[in-house]
């Protein structure tokens, strides 16, 4: 069974998925970070494929993309690093990136090699639903890669239902009309939107992302969805840290403390 399906079978609340950019802050940190996240108790990891023009991302993730590319990260190396991580890490691994580097690598080759490396799902924000269904779906399915769709507060109910129908994993619910890392607190409007999603009783579970920066926002959005995705706040930590493994451990424990009652 795909590791993402397995996770959602075991757990349908308070799932913590953590995003970071491959090759950031240093080229070979990808593995150290993935291992530390598993050890700290994260439920899923999302590894960003760096791109020169990440239009859906705010300044923090843009900068991590640039640093990773300057460090020499590329698709081949990234897939090697994932294969290396997969030797020990059992968590579901999702690759997230923009379409252009993927099509240059070759969509079929990419899917085959991602599967071999141990990838479970893909988030390609600029791959539209229609193109996915007509041109990409078969490659994803043959290789048991789940495609994760995004929705935002401006997505119509009809479109949400279409996306839910096409989805075979979870839906990534962007919490606000924003690029990544833009907002820090949750407005009433956003809570209304999440409440609406909850009440739509979609067949796919949803995780909430964009603007989840601390245990307060994490626990708030967990009241609506199956969990949340943390990205920019984690990248900010990686930028500052001098003892990476310990800080990652603390970050994860702190994020989920209200859910587990843990205090370190």
């Amino acid at each position, binding site marked *: 069974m795909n590791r993402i399906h397995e996770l959602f079978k075991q757990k349908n609340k308070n799932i913590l998925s953590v995003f970071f950019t491959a090759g950031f802050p240093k080229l070979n940190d990808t593995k150290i970070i993935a291992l530390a996240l598993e050890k700290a108790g994260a439920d899923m990891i999302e590894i960003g494929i760096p791109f020169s023009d990440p*239009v859906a991302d705010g300044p923090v993730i843009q900068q991590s993309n640039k640093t990773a590319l300057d460090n020499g990260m590329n*698709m081949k190396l990234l897939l090697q690093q994932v294969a290396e991580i997969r030797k020990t890490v059992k968590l579901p691994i999702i690759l997230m990136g923009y379409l252009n580097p993927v*099509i240059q690598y070759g969509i079929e080759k990419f899917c085959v090699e991602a599967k071999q490396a141990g990838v479970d799902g893909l988030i390609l*924000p600029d791959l539209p639903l229609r193109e996915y269904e007509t041109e990409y779906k078969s490659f994803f399915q043959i290789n048991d890669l789940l495609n994760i769709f*995004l929705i935002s507060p401006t997505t119509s109910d009809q479109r949400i239902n279409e996306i839910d129908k096409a989805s075979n994993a979870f839906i990534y619910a962007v919490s606000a009309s924003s690029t990544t890392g833009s907002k820090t607190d949750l407005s009433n409007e956003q809570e209304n939107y999440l409440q609406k999603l909850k009440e739509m009783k979609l067949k796919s579970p949803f995780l909430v992302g964009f603007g989840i920066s601390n245990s307060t926002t994490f626990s708030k959005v967990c009241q609506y969805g199956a969990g949340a995705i943390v990205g920019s706040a984690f990248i900010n930590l990686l930028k500052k840290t001098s003892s990476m493994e310990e800080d990652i451990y603390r970050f994860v424990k702190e994020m989920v403390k209200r859910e587990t009652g843990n205090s370190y």
Partner: protein
Amino acid sequence: MKYTIDENGCYGKFGGAFIPEMLYPNVEELRLNYQTIIQSADFINEFQYLLRHYVGRPTPLFFAARLSEKYRAKIFLKREDLCHTGAHKINNTIGQILLARRLGKRKIIAETGAGQHGVATATVCALMGMDCIVYMGQLDMERQRPNVERMRILGAHVIAATSGNMTLKDATNEAMRHWINNPTDTHYIIGSVVGPHPYPDMVAQFQSVISEEIKKQLINEIGNPYPDYVVACVGGGSNAAGAYYHFLNDEPVQLIGVEAAGKGINTNESAATTALGKVGILHGSKSLLMQTEDGQVIEPYSISAGLDYPGIGPLHAHLFDAGRVRFISATDDEAMNAGIELSRLEGIIPAIESAHAVAALSQLALSEEDVVVLNLSGRGDKDLETYIKWGKY
């Protein structure tokens, strides 16, 4: 019509709308409404009125006698340089702001490279009393100071794009991010035939007035609407799209696109996308794109800030693929020499973008009977600093 978009917004294998879901409602709203709006009598009347009385259309088709003598052909200049604000860009900004108003939008954003599209956008926003934010690469702001101040005088808020190389591509990224963050009350006026469907088609339609006029004017000049050549420079490709538009199905008319070779196609300092690009996706559409083997976008170079974009519009990628347009290129030096030449022969100082089209004349095997229409997309006032720095005149 094999050179128009299909039902999916594609020109052959190019085009489409590769956008994050956050932009889907905005782009979908445009897609569903643009044709109905721009074909309505009310829109057409207002658009035509403003083109005539505000922009100053029709622009002249001028027989360039001394240039013709030099190149031994009949060369006509389509004088887009005489448009209000100094270039063809305003044809599109007028069309889009009228559309934005009909969609109930209150704020306008735009990207700009050399500043011409930014100025054209700031101008129509002032005319319509709408808020205007223009993103411009920080490096371009330094290179094109006068245009930054023009936009500010017109009441626009100019924001520096500080990511990447801080030029046009980065300004476009920032404008798209702004739109993601402000999806409901804001319309994004893209300045060229790039971006997700319906932008390339919409911008081409607004610019198509250029070739519509050329055809009418040629009947008076030569007795029929068909030249042998139409020549235009191509960055993203909006002036070229407008100049080719009504000739696309007139196969005997040879269409020539002139890209910026920068310091030379093989120097790594170039913006000649058809020569150096591969199929790729940037800013919402599939087209030809200058990129590394790993799919990272390459920063282009040209002395002309209006041509240093790493892609071309999907229409042009398709026209290139289909062999309908012949793409050639001119280097910085060739373009600058051509700019001086046009100044001396015809008393017209062209924008450096347009000077690339002039530089192409020597690469065409012209004969005395050939009728050439050269789209002079903009005037050189904004480029005086560059002419002065170049100095060889």
